[in-house]
């Protein structure tokens, strides 16, 4: 059975900010599913609809079989939500936050207390259990956020940008904990991220989201496998003037060429053979090259392939 079904969601904010434009995907029970996309792609809006905070303009969604619009209370009982912007009470202790969450979810006091201690232990927060949250470090606070989402043993956990704003060390630790969690608790997890590495690392399946729609879906490996060959990125000294892509495209062994500003992305059969050919062809036509890299396809390239745009530049353009 599918734990989450999203079918044709649409949402427009104000008059013309189209956040969702026919978003559809499904997540089977027990899976860790990643929504990957740049800022402003519609990931958070999708999650907010699934956790019953926001109402869609059109389309439908169910979580563990309950319609999010018509049975919000049943959905709320089944889910844990870890929002991008924390949501824990800074003026209360970690333990108090957990207990309140448990009580609002209808847990009995004895059960709530036992579960709170268990989670504080699991997220290495036992020492901080009776300290006010405002004294927590960024990583500790984020771990408490996740623990709060897990308090009532939900069937589905929503993690909205779980590691944004964390330093690399805390991010690595969080990834460690989330992987452990996904394996240990029988839990469906939907996580949104704009870190390609994070989706690659944590998600069994990924949906790539761009401008309010899913543009590609599959396991990270399958998505990468679809892109045969290797990726050659050529950074030009000046903006591509239309001549450079045509030159590269005409060469043998080139599968695909995409341009993004000064960067030229070529998918090739064999990187090592293609690079000298590309360089000499460009040089012969007087196109100056600033840098060249060869790599195995990453989710970066998958994103580029499906949207025709570079992930980083989209992310910056999306803002937030």
């Amino acid at each position, binding site marked *: 059975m599918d734990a989450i079904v999203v079918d044709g969601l649409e949402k427009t904010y104000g008059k013309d900010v189209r956040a969702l434009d026919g978003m559809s995907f499904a997540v089977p029970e027990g899976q860790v599913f990643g929504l990957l996309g740049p800022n402003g792609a519609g990931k958070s809006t999708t999650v*907010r609809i699934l*956790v*019953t*905070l*926001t*109402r869609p303009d059109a389309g439908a969604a169910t979580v563990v079989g309950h319609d999010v619009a018509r049975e919000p*209370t049943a959905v*709320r*009982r089944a*889910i844990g*939500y870890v*929002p991008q*912007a*924390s*949501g*824990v*009470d*800074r*003026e*209360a202790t970690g333990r*108090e936050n957990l207990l*309140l*969450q448990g*009580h*609002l*979810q*209808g847990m009995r006091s004895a059960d709530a207390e036992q579960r709170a201690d268990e989670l504080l232990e699991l997220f290495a927060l036992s020492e901080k259990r009776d300290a*006010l949250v405002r004294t927590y470090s960024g990583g500790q606070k984020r771990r408490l956020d996740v623990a*709060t989402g897990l308090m009532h043993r939900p069937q589905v956990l929503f993690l909205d940008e779980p590691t944004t704003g964390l330093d690399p060390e805390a991010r690595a630790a969080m990834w460690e904990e989330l992987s452990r969690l996904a394996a240990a608790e029988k839990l469906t997890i939907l996580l949104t991220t704009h870190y390609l590495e994070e989706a690659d690392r944590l998600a069994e399946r990924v949906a790539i989201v761009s401008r309010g729609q899913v543009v590609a879906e599959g396991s990270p490996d399958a998505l990468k496998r679809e892109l045969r060959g290797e990726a050659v990125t050529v950074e030009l000294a000046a903006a591509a003037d239309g001549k450079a892509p045509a030159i590269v495209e005409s060469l043998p062994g080139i599968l695909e060429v995409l341009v993004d500003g000064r960067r030229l992305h070529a998918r090739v059969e064999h990187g090592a053979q293609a690079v000298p050919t590309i360089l000499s062809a460009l040089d012969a036509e007087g196109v100056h090259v600033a840098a060249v890299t060869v790599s195995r396809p990453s989710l970066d390239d998958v994103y580029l392939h499906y949207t025709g745009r570079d992930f980083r530049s989209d992310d910056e353009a999306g803002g937030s």
Partner: protein
Amino acid sequence: MTAITQTGFLFLRVMRNLMRQPIWIVFMLVQPMFWLLLYSQLFRRITDLPGFGTHSYIDYLTPGIAIMTAFFSGSWAGMGTIEDLDRGVVERFLTTPARRSAIVSARIVQSGVVATIQALIVLLVGLALGATNGGAPGWIVILLASGLIGAGFAGFSNGVALLTRREESMIAVANFISLPLLFFSSILIAKSLIPSWMRSLSLVNPVEWSVRAARGQVLPHTDWGAIGVYLVLLALFTLGTGAFATWSFRSYQRTL
């Protein structure tokens, strides 16, 4: 789980947070203390005019200042809600089965309790200055009226907070309403000395209802019937602003 249990847990949370910084309760008392200590001295001889029902202005003023403190304090209650909105706490509550009415009620009940505590402090200071406030029945009525007016204005304030979601707007509204409501009441002066057009308008002012209830037992010719009517009106006022706050919550959710 019922809305009442949820209100209880959420009420405990806000009370606990407040008790960690009890300075706020005291802070809200600074201004009323100036009125009680200085204004009462400045206008000490005002009771030479007829209509006060007592020759001691401090006797007359103390219940009024208790009410003033309560309604000022209630009208700022929305600030805590704005902080919760900004920090995502409200959204987290909304993704649990907790009811909107419970989230709002917790704040309103808290304001009622805080207003009662503040009124009690005002009465104790008044007592030190010689105002007996009509003994035990008088104190009970004053504290009840203070709690209700504090809770009533907290409902209004929370409604405004949920509609505007901005501290600046909240501050503007609280400042805008406080002085007119103070002057269209008999908090500072005998009602027979108020110009008749202001007195007529004061009859629809919930602050005036609470002052009249609070003074009912303090001044001679106690009319328990009238006190009862005013207390019922205050309870209805609190229910009304609570409904307004819950309605505002719905309107806030539509913007999400």
